């Protein structure tokens, strides 16, 4: 029999989405500034803020957090010499932090506060000879950074400022024998990396260059009997894969190839009674899993949630403003 993390069918009734509790959980996380846990998240704080705001926006309560204070703080992470943003004040600039900064400003419709030329210059400087992108000035290469760079530029409507053809050629070199994508050429297919590569291809209208059916099937096989998704064969389920897998399938037009009801049930079971969503039922929640759980529910048209665009990981009304 399968060892795919089989679960007995959950006999308890699945409750509703406890949105009010999640709002409260996010507010408390934001207000709890001087705690040990917050220091531990320091190296990716700006992404944490993006996940928090994106979650609130999906639940249509963006005003729960103080906009001006946050936007001011975002610019404290800005390094005007390079044009990049760091994960927190006085941390070195990084590409993914820069993406989070730009996403936050897009959420707040404050993109014109950016020195766009400078940020574009930063992202351009991260592209390597082979088309790949580095995450920072020290050179780590990963397809996450290809997606981060292209999305950041797309939000600022400056996609053509990098060599898009080479960027896509590099992403395609990371395509594997099973139809999936890894972090570098040859690395194992992994749902998180697949989301980044499919996102990069979708943003540049290059999805026709891959075998959509093969990848769609691989992604559908991530759904386990418990309803949740894993990230690669024979691994455990985790709520974050609900997002990585489902948004990839949405971009490929294959979102129907999984059981929505079972996934919905699984995500709802991962809600903490104190608010927030965890990786698995009964575990401790965090803002990362809260966003990905809500994002996946939004993709499945869960009632009373705003629709999210899978390519941008931003709600559609923000994307409409960008694409105008």
């Amino acid at each position, binding site marked *: 029999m399968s060892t795919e993390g089989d679960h007995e069918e959950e006999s308890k009734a699945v409750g509703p989405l406890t949105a009010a509790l999640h709002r409260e959980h996010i507010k408390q996380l934001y207000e709890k500034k001087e705690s040990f846990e917050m*220091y531990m998240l*320091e*190296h990716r704080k700006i992404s944490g803020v993006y996940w928090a705001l994106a979650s609130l926006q999906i639940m249509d309560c963006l005003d729960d957090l103080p906009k001006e204070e946050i936007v001011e703080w975002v610019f404290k992470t800005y390094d005007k010499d390079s044009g990049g943003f760091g994960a927190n004040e*006085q*941390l070195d600039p990084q590409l993914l932090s820069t993406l989070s900064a730009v996403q936050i400003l897009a959420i707040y419709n404050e993109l014109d506060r950016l020195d766009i030329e400078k940020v574009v210059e930063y992202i351009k400087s991260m592209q390597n000879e082979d088309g790949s992108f580095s995450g920072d000035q020290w050179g780590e290469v990963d397809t996450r950074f290809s997606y981060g760079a292209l999305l950041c530029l797309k939000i600022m409507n400056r996609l053509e400022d990098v060599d898009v053809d080479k960027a896509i050629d590099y992403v395609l070199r990371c395509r594997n024998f099973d139809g999936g994508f890894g972090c570098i050429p040859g*690395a194992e297919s992994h749902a998180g990396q697949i989301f980044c590569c499919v996102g990069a291809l979708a943003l540049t209208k290059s999805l026709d260059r891959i075998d959509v*059916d093969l990848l769609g099937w691989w992604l559908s*096989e991530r759904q386990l009997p418990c309803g949740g998704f894993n990230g*690669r064969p024979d691994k455990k389920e985790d709520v974050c894969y609900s997002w990585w897998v489902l948004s990839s399938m949405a971009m490929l037009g294959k979102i129907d190839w999984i059981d929505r009801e079972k996934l919905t049930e699984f995500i709802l079971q991962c809600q903490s009674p104190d608010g927030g969503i965890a990786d698995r039922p009964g575990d401790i929640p965090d803002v990362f899993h809260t966003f990905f759980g809500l994002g996946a529910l939004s993709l499945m048209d869960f009632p009373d949630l705003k629709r999210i665009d899978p390519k941008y990981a931003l709600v559609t009304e923000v994307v409409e403003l960008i694409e105008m």
Partner: protein
Amino acid sequence: MSCTEQNGALCEIAPVGCIPYEKDYEGYWRALRGAIEREEISDRGAVISDLIIDYNPGHYTAWEYRRKWSVQEGLVNEEIQYAAEQVVSNPKNYQVWHHHRRLVEILDKPVDALELTRNSLEEDAKNYHAWSYRQWIVKKFDLFSNEHEFVSKFIDADVRNNSAWNYRYFLIRETKFGPHSHFVEEPSLVQETSYAIRKSRLAPHNESPWNYIRALTRLARMPLVDVVGLVDALRDSNPQATIDNRFAAHLYADILAESDSRADKEAAAKLFQNLRDSDPCRRRYWDHKLSTIQKSISRS
């Protein structure tokens, strides 16, 4: 270094008027920031960066400080040992692996990378960082000679280890089809597909060997039906009992669907119907396969 010495170092580095904290993360970070602002790359700074990393191994600015310091002091070999220790403590952290790799790039030697990844995989046979780092090391320094044996041990230990199967494919592609093909005795495609078929018998409901076989045939531009022993193995896997061997049944159905014979295509349709009935989770996918085969039947 004792706590007192560390605090002494903090007192010297921290800005005037700042109260030193004992084992306080915020104090360490303030001290390191001070050093960075003064462009001071020193042993004291290295001590502080170690304290920060102890609390928070994701602190990429502390890691970069250490890289600059170890290069300046000519201590890159020692720093690689430090990086290896941090990998053992934090095996799923991007920054620790990246630190080791950057130092290997600086030295332009593999150093202990093979041993490091082997030890890491012995702890966690699916560690994504370990496998992808090992791929990079083996390719960069042409260290393919024992890798076939290495990966076989992991597949023997757990036939469902998808990371190991992925690594095996990487080896085949690089050594049979890539620029390193003169380094290693080429395991032939027949041997590899037989191997995968043998392994699949241990756990028919296992994606990895079936994906591997499909991939090998694409690499060799060979039709699936020509793989020696594959059709028999699939038939033996009892494809009608699709609950227990969905992947084998899918592959068998795909082979039948490729045939010119109408009878084979109809058998494929039956299998897809069976799969749809036994795997309702993915029923829309199986509907897609069914409609494709129905179109093919009506054309034949």
